[in-house]
């Protein structure tokens, strides 16, 4: 398969006053042209930090090691100036809250055109024409009028369209979307998910969808990577993970998700709380919340290992899972 990004053994740490916290550990995955990968996990699972590290956007006390290969180029450890050749052009990222990513004092067309002027040395006039065409492509109503608006004059859904348009202007190979629909109404969310689907088809862009909402990824993602405590704990196709989850955490996420077509008297939540990265549990980090744990899980961390069918999981329990309560 045509790989556009391969990440090998990536670690992300943050220096605190006295200590160091590891947000991402030994993460490896690859992304093929035009495919959609969902990265799923709770707050603190490391799902956002992993991709901020790839984009060179970690906070100042953050440090990344390992390799994130964009073709022959390793993005990890690259100086910001050098990274700017690739960011925006080859790999772009959008966030949950577009308002924090847009400059409130510039018109939409000005900040979007800047991307083309800077990366493709396009002249301003031509850039603005391109911008309006792209706004139209991402489904912005009245694109000419909105291009002349300021960000605060747009609705949340329109702002997210502006962000997507900005990210796609240079036709990047990879688009990373961090909870892009979490703040949106369900109707606008549905429009956005449709838009993502058509964009990956039309432009061949590989999409990384970072989210905690399994409903969002079910119809969109080709493959999934589930993260817990900074590590990938299960990887496989979307159908494999939804219909035959092999890691108890994946199973727990599925049972926690309410389904609009079914009314259950009670949901089946994962017990307990996500771990603090500063004090990760011994052995398997999920063992305090796990219904399937046994002695080994308390002391030895299961490695991420292939289990056939192109799948991987990090769990000592063999075979398919049946639902169980935490004893």
């Amino acid at each position, binding site marked *: 398969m045509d790989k556009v990004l391969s990440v090998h053994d990536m670690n992300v740490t943050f220096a605190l006053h006295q200590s160091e916290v590891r947000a991402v550990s030994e993460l490896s995955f690859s992304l093929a042209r035009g495919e959609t990968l969902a990265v799923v996990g709770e707050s603190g699972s490391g799902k956002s930090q992993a991709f901020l590290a790839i984009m060179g956007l970690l906070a100042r006390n953050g440090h990344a090691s390992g390799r994130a290969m964009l073709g022959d180029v390793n993005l990890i450890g690259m100086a910001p100036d050098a990274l700017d050749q690739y960011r925006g052009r080859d790999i772009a990222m959008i966030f949950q809250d577009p308002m924090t990513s847009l400059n409130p004092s510039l018109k939409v067309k000005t900040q979007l055109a800047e991307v083309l002027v800077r990366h493709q040395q396009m002249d301003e006039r031509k850039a603005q024409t391109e911008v309006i065409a792209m706004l139209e492509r991402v489904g912005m109503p009245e694109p000419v009028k909105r291009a002349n608006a300021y960000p605060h004059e747009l609705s949340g859904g329109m702002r997210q369209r502006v962000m997507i348009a900005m990210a796609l202007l240079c036709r990047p190979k990879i688009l990373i979307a961090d909870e892009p629909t979490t703040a949106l*109404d369900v109707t606008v969310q549905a429009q956005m998910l449709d838009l993502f689907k058509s964009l990956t088809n039309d432009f061949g862009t590989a999409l990384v969808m970072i989210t905690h909402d399994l*409903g969002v990824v079910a119809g969109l993602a080709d493959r999934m990577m589930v993260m817990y405590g900074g590590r990938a704990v299960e990887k496989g196709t979307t*159908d494999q993970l939804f219909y035959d989850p092999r890691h108890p955490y994946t199973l727990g996420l599925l049972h926690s998700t309410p389904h609009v077509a079914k*009314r259950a008297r009670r949901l*089946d939540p994962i017990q307990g*709380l996500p771990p603090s990265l500063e004090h990760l549990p011994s052995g398997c980090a999920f063992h305090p919340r796990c219904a399937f744990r046994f002695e080994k899980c308390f002391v030895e961390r299961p490695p991420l290992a292939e289990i056939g069918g192109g799948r991987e999981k990090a769990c000592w329990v063999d075979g398919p899972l049946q639902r169980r309560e935490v004893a």
Partner: protein
Amino acid sequence: MDNRPDILRIENLGKTFSIGAALFSRPLTLTALQDISFTIRQGETLGIVGESGCGKSTLGRCILQLLTPDSGRVLWMGEDIASLPKEEMRKRRRDLQIIFQDPLASLNPRMTVGEIIADPLRTLMPELDAVARRAKVLKTMEAVGLLPEMINRYPHEFSGGQAQRIGIARALITDPKLIVCDEPVSALDVSIQAQILNLLADLKDEFGLTLIFISHNLSVVRHVSDRILVLYLGRMVELAEGDDLYEAPKHPYTRALLTAVPIPDPIRARQRTIDGLEGEIPSPINPPSGCTFRTRCRFAIGLCAEERPPLENTGHGLVACHRWKELELQPGA
């Protein structure tokens, strides 16, 4: 369950806001709620859904008298709360509590957990002394799954889910009869969301609570609610039992909302077509004439622009649509 008494009756409730206009120009009027009428039975959970700006939070706040409605009445156990003398109103306030969306933002960072939970007692149950207050706080903390040793800690030491438990304890401490839950799980991770929803269900059973559950998440609302009220631009468009609403929506907007809900099932999610709800909600400052949904409705006809559809009884609930009888809408999901 239908023979339980009505505990709350809302009659023709309306609420407008003045939008501060530029100097020398007239202020604009935003109609947040118009002609809202419904009743809630004791022990029932009523879900209120709609997109942002539909008025669902304003409605919750008007019911609690945190906002003063411009028109209409809120009858709590047969009494118009707004017309009560101050002292009587304070007594009623014990019965009616609220839980907010952002648990950390709604807790005072300088107060300990114990102080936060006890706070409503100071004004609403001033007869309790310090010993009795502390005992009540501990009992409530236990009910919501907080450990007694957490009583002297501060909000920032808690995760979102734990903070929401503190918010629930604060609402529960006055022994309320009704709690308005305003997007109580929207800010939480999915595994924690399920814990809080189960907790609310348990508390409802244990204390015989009546709940108003406001959310934009239809999956969550379906899960917790007996009946569901759908709002659009400040008006009621449909009100029905949960199963009827989901299996046989009568209003095109309800149906559109349902088809937009993400389904956590890949095969069904791929097969499904979303009922094209084009565009975004019109401005509530200048709403469309007639039926306010007509600008996004693919069933709209000339009549819809001319006349506002009345709320009609369908036999299974209420719907405000000129064409509800002739449209055979499929279930949403």
